[in-house]
């Protein structure tokens, strides 16, 4: 066995008496990784790391339930559970054939012999023991709800008793989502730079983070309409553990800085310092819109059970609103784009409609539309990808926002301009092509190799400047 004399301290007592085994998580002709719980409900993992003729050595460390769930669902590797453990010191215990503890050694995480550490990418590749099947679901829901934003939406009038109009409900859900999505992407750009993730395309990374941060509703109650909002930071396999922690922190910041914020003059100044006019508009105007006095519904922030109302969302005073979201002058911003549906009488020229202005019978501004676009060439600046077949993609227009969700390449884009969102898609695909074809295949994950092959399958002639 490895000699620990220079790297660990012998502990005078074993700090975890009276443990109960919950289950072996990994077993092969004996336990490899086991889950124990102590009398106070503290969870511990025992990882077998070494032996000699008479003793087995176990690495023992505390773990919180949500990290355990995350590990069992392949969201974090065992190596990261060890190296990013909250405790600086972990325990190495030598246990003899009669299951007696001969030595307990406290060792700093960074002093652990490399041979005792799980390898990079040591995600859980085994069956989840039956004992966790139900409790994990409960724990997961519990963890989703632990920091959730809980809102109650009620009619101001008694016209429909407690029944809430679908339109009002959709407006609230959409605006909370819009505000949160803006908050995530704006703050990601503030907190990170492309230097932090050298091997990844920064724009694609932001799209992935926004997509992974989708708002979820883990709890609902009817009568009036009550919903808990949260985002998942356990199940999705993160590009980097620091992003996982960042997403968790950022959701909590959204809750305190936007939804639960009391926007008085004192709270305003830090926001003016932190965000520019455009950012504040993107984050705060959807929430101000659903807090207006003129709405025929009201929104309250409640506790998790929706029983206790903490406060009602109220409009902010005009002077504060003018400072928070100043009117952006037309010279500063391109004219806002809207989508129209035009009905008119015309003729078909080359299979395309031709309608003169005077024959337009009706033009209607649309709130929502799904548009299918096609191209045979993907181009951005001097880069071109000529395709074997026509490439179709969908653009969803939703009240001023154009959204592209191209799942095969994991691209999620949103923009207020139709042309910009299309250009962003082309740029993302070209960046992806560049990255995947430039890097040695040995450095790509299996998923990336699959993605690369899918891309190569659709491209006929690449004209790329590396």
């Amino acid at each position, binding site marked *: 066995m490895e000699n620990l004399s220079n790297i660990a301290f012998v502990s005078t007592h074993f700090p975890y008496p009276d443990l109960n*085994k919950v289950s072996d998580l990994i077993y*092969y002709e004996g*336990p*490899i990784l086991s889950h124990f719980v102590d009398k106070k409900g503290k969870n511990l993992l025992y*990882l077998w*790391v070494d032996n000699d003729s008479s003793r087995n050595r176990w690495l023992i460390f505390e773990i919180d339930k949500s990290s355990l769930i995350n590990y069992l669902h392949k969201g974090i590797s*065992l190596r990261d559970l060890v190296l990013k453990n909250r405790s600086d010191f972990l325990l190495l215990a030598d246990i003899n054939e009669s299951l007696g503890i001969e030595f307990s050694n406290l060792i700093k995480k960074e002093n652990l012999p490399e*041979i005792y*550490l799980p*390898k990079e990418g040591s995600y859980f590749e085994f069956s989840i023991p039956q004992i966790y099947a139900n409790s994990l679901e409960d724990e997961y829901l519990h963890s989703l709800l632990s920091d959730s934003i809980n809102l109650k939406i009620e009619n101001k009038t008694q016209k429909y008793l407690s029944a809430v109009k679908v339109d009002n409900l959709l407006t609230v859900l959409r605006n909370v989502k819009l505000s949160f999505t803006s908050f995530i992407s704006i703050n990601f750009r503030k907190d990170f730079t492309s230097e932090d993730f050298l091997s990844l395309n920064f724009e694609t990374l932001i799209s992935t983070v926004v997509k992974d941060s989708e708002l979820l509703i883990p709890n609902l109650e009817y009568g009036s309409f009550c919903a808990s909002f949260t985002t998942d930071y356990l199940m999705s396999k993160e590009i980097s553990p620091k992003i996982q922690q960042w997403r968790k922190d950022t959701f909590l910041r959204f809750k305190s800085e936007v939804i639960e914020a009391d926007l008085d003059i004192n709270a305003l100044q830090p926001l003016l310092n932190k965000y520019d006019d455009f950012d504040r508009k993107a984050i705060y105007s959807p929430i101000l819109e659903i807090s207006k006095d003129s709405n025929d519904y009201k929104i309250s922030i409640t506790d998790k059970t929706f029983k206790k109302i903490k406060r009602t969302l109220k409009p902010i005073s005009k002077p504060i609103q003018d400072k928070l979201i100043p009117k952006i002058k037309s010279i500063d911003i391109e004219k806002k784009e809207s989508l129209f549906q035009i009905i008119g009488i015309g003729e078909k020229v080359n299979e395309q409609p031709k309608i003169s202005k005077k024959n337009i019978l009706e033009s209607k501004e649309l709130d929502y539309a799904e548009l299918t676009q096609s191209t045979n060439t993907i181009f951005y600046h001097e880069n071109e990808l000529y395709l074997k077949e026509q490439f179709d993609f969908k653009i969803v227009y939703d009240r001023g926002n154009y959204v592209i969700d191209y799942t095969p390449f994991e691209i999620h884009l949103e923009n207020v301009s139709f042309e910009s969102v299309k250009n962003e898609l082309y740029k993302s695909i070209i960046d992806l092509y560049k990255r995947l074809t430039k890097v040695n295949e040995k450095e790509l994950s299996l998923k990336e190799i699959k993605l690369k092959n899918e891309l190569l399958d659709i491209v006929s002639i690449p004209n790329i400047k590396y």
Partner: protein
Amino acid sequence: MLEAGIAEICPPTESIQREIQAFRFIYERIEDDRNFIPVYIKKPQRFNHKSDAEKCSGFGISLYNSEERAIKKYSSLINVVQNIGKTIGTHLAEGKILKDFGVTTPIDGEGHFDLHESDTCNLHNKFTVVRKIA
């Protein structure tokens, strides 16, 4: 001699005699005493709190029905414990199981099955080392 509770269920009733190509993790030298001893006999204390079915499995010899599946399992274990070779072996061996070697449990989704040996079975001279895997 099996304990009373285990003897009633061991080998499992669904076990059958069969001829099958099999793969097993072993230590480098095929003659190594540890290579073909059921884990329950090697380390009975590991089964102190195990069910009778788990104890019964401990009397079987763990095998895989393909080299690929055996290596896949070994890779997933060595990812977790780099020293895994010290406890389950460092090499892969291949041999043909014949009907008179004993009975085999059904093959699971990972290609794993147990051989419950007959009294006359000696696997040391039926297996050969294929490659180092640790």
